[in-house]
């Protein structure tokens, strides 16, 4: 500061500080994130890579590679972040991560500490090693075949919060503003373009209270401990912290120039102790310490590093590593043996979006990012609660047909899914047309009637909205017609609906349109979904047999036809 007073630096040089470059980068990436969330909507997609933040996430890359053995579609983009980390350390955390930027912004806005208090708040604490426990547990779980990293991965967490909590909240504010302005005589239809999910009806997500509450709590904790989430909980930060030991560039302290003034701790985001031996695994490379050092004793460099001024590895010993491994190995059977999601006993509401892979595979792939919920135009996709999918499937997508239905020619959820839990499908594949004809349409479940509540069945009142809206041809809801004299002596024709399970694709439009709202007279449950052999209902779909016969298809070649008969086997 003194130096600047003696030799005034030109204003433009002051603007070109590296921390300003960092803030610009954060603003750009945060803007891109919000832009992607905004574009994750049926009328806006237009080929934009709206899930790219998730696909760049090296932890998603690594854990899905562990759980499935494969790298889906665009997940290889994470190599970019891996390369950036082994070059520059955890630059992702303070230059790119939109969740990190949100935390930093809130911490900055609500900071009430004096400089000296900030030095204390920004010193490393042993509890910050907790994130390595979380990372270890997630990695062990993934290796065993249960993907839970999405619970805390910052990109997944922020996407999920945006889709289910922030977007409806923000859109509510926009709608409120618009109606207030309209009340004042100023109608601004253009405001709809600002909305994150401009559906006709306000969107609701079951259980989004808890997703929003988690976000608010974690962000609010910045007031107590700066960057609490990033320093203590973030599994992605922990992963990058482990990688950063290879980083060629790092903050290097010239011990001979350092006067131990502690000013470098004032804005240290990672609590990485730049004033002493730098904890490389904790450093976010935010560069604030360089900016704040009055002696120019700190440099971000690959050359002339002092090996004594760094702790290269996380504060995490062999004993902690074993403890973490044991935790993960206990967590796996605890999650799996919950008994709520087995092929014998699963929730009737565990209805997955079209293109979803078989349930065991699904749980190896879904990162609970809710991109599918965000893009779904009808609001039918909902975050599963503990009652539907158990702790293992918490916040994975399920269809709740009281809130919407699966639109016949829509495959958007399969388009935006970054991990292939919902495999990318075409409309042709979804409807079982063209090359998929002999296999038939993808079915999500099967519709059932509650005849005690159905108006024509139980109350002699004509209805059959369900038959009307049933989108397949021939219809999966058909009727048996009967003429009766009703309680008022009137002759009425009752079309009593029934389900043809072979034809039903479980789209749920019958349920969402059923006028018996409180508890629908027709409802879809998961049994009969085509993605699972173990959860099917019918031995054979007569409709598919008919299609095969009609198309003159040769019988499907036996997958075992080429197998030699092994003696004694």
């Amino acid at each position, binding site marked *: 500061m003194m130096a600047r007073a003696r030799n005034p630096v030109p204003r433009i040089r002051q603007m070109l500080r590296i921390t300003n470059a960092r803030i610009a980068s954060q603003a750009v990436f945060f803007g891109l994130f919000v832009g992607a969330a905004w574009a994750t909507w049926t009328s806006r997609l237009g080929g934009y890579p709206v899930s790219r933040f998730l696909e760049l996430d*090296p932890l998603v*890359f690594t854990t899905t*590679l562990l759980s*499935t*053995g*494969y*790298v*889906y*579609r665009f*997940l*290889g983009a*994470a*190599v970019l972040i*891996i*390369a950036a980390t*082994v*070059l520059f350390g955890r630059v992702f955390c303070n230059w790119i991560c939109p969740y990190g930027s949100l935390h930093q912004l809130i911490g900055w806005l609500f900071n009430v500490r004096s400089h000296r208090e900030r030095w204390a708040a920004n010193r490393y604490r042993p509890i910050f090693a907790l994130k390595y426990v979380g990372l270890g547990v997630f990695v062990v779980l993934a290796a065993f075949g249960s993907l839970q990293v999405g619970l805390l991965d910052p990109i997944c967490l922020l996407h999920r919060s945006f889709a289910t909590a922030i977007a409806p909240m923000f859109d509510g504010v926009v709608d409120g503003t618009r109606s207030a302005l309209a009340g004042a005589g100023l109608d601004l239809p253009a405001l709809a373009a600002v909305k994150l999910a401009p559906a006709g009806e306000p969107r609701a997500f079951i259980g989004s209270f808890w997703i929003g509450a988690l976000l608010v709590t974690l962000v609010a904790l910045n007031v107590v401990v700066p960057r609490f989430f990033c320093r203590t909980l973030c599994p992605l930060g922990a992963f990058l912290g482990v*990688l950063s*030991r*290879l*980083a*060629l560039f790092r903050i290097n302290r*010239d*011990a*001979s120039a350092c006067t131990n003034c502690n000013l470098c701790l004032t804005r240290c985001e990672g609590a990485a102790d730049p004033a002493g031996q730098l904890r490389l695994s904790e450093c976010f490379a935010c560069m604030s310490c360089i900016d704040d050092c009055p002696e120019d004793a700190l440099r971000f460099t*690959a*050359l*002339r*590093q*002092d*090996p*004594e*001024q760094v702790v*290269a*590895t996380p504060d995490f010993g062999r004993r902690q590593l074993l403890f973490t491994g044991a935790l993960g190995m206990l967590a796996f059977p605890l999650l799996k043996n919950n008994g709520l999601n087995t*092929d014998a006993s699963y929730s009737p509401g565990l209805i997955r979006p079209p293109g979803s*892979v*078989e349930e065991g*595979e699904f749980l190896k*792939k879904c990162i609970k990012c809710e991109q599918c919920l965000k893009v779904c135009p009808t609001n039918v996709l909902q975050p599963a609660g503990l009652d539907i999918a158990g702790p293992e499937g918490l916040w994975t997508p399920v269809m709740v047909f009281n809130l919407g239905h699966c639109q016949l020619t829509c495959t958007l959820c399969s388009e935006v899914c970054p991990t*292939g839990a919902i*495999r*990318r499908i075409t409309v042709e594949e979804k409807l079982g047309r063209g090359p998929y004809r002999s296999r038939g349409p993808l079915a999500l479940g099967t519709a059932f009637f509650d005849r005690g509540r159905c108006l024509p069945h139980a109350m002699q009142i004509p209805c059959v909205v369900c038959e009307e809206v049933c989108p397949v041809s021939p219809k999966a809801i058909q009727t048996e017609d009967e003429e009766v004299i009703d309680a008022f002596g009137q002759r009425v024709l009752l079309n009593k609906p029934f389900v043809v399970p072979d034809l039903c694709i479980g789209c749920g439009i019958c349920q969402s349109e059923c006028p018996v709202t409180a508890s629908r007279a027709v409802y879809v449950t998961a049994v009969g979904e085509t993605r699972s*052999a*173990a959860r*099917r*209902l*019918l*031995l*054979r779909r007569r409709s598919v047999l008919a299609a095969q016969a009609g198309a003159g298809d040769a019988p499907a070649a*036996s*997958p*075992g*036809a080429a*197998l030699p*008969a*092994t*003696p*004694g*086997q």
Partner: protein
Amino acid sequence: MARRERPAGEPAGAPRQLTRRAFLTRALGAAGVTSAAAYAAYAPEDWPGAARDADGLRSVPAVKPFRLTDFRVAKPVGAPDVAVGHGGDAMTRLRKALDALGGLAHYVSPGDIVLLKPNVAFDRAPVLAATTNPEILAALIRLILVDCRAQEVRVADNPIESPADCFAKSGIAAAVASAGGRVYLPDANAFRILNTPDSRLIENWQFFHRPLTNANKVIGVAPVKDHNLCLASMGMKNWYGLLGGRRNQFHQDIHELVSDLSLMIRPTLTILDGTYVLMRNGPTGGDPADVRPGDAVVAAVDPVAADAWAYRHLLSRTTELPRYLLLAEEKGTGSASTEGRVREIA
């Protein structure tokens, strides 16, 4: 990074510098990690170790089905296709029937591993005739082990109720143990996907595979029972007990399935125990009054003919044969006409 001692002669306090070796080691590590990740993500799918999965289909687990061998043994010249032993105790009747077929030693060779498949579907006492009678099973095991000098006799079934209880309460576990056989109970790892070419419903299906590992001979030992859906449960229906998976769906087309079973496994012999016949309220029974004591043991090389004979003569039905027998005939696994093919020994 390992902390090294300061080399002698270097002035204390002067900042140490990164050695070239340390820098290169780190650079190599960084390049290695990045290239490994890039290779996994972007190498073409047919390259070794490549993990790219562009359409999400590669990570769907592949089904690797296996096939069963044909366990049949050609009968001696002049032997009937079906032989029935009457009179005496279980062992006597069984011997009569087997001798008429050419003797058990013709079918089971010394050193063979033989699988016996009784019907142990339910947790019932033997007197209710819902399960294979333990007496006949024990007699057969003794014949195989003593007369034929087989290496091992295995007894397996995948019951509807708890396997251990079914085997214990049907008396089969004790009978097998006393005769020197070995019971195989099913568990989650005992199943594999079996490929049955030309079958309509079970082309690839979960199959109780473990007891068949290295087995050379397979003999079905079934009771003769009334069945609510497919009229009768006899020798062919007995093989249902080796299926796993969601087999309750097969009742949507039971006749097709039972005839598929005759394609699925081509047993060395089929033995039907007519000592106690469950005449009604099958296949579970539950009242001794449903059971009629008979006096017959059937041994056959043709499972279709054995069932057809038992349907007429043990269940004493005069109605049409169960449709699955006709379907099995169409599939070429036997013949339902018993004219001149059955030899009864009093």
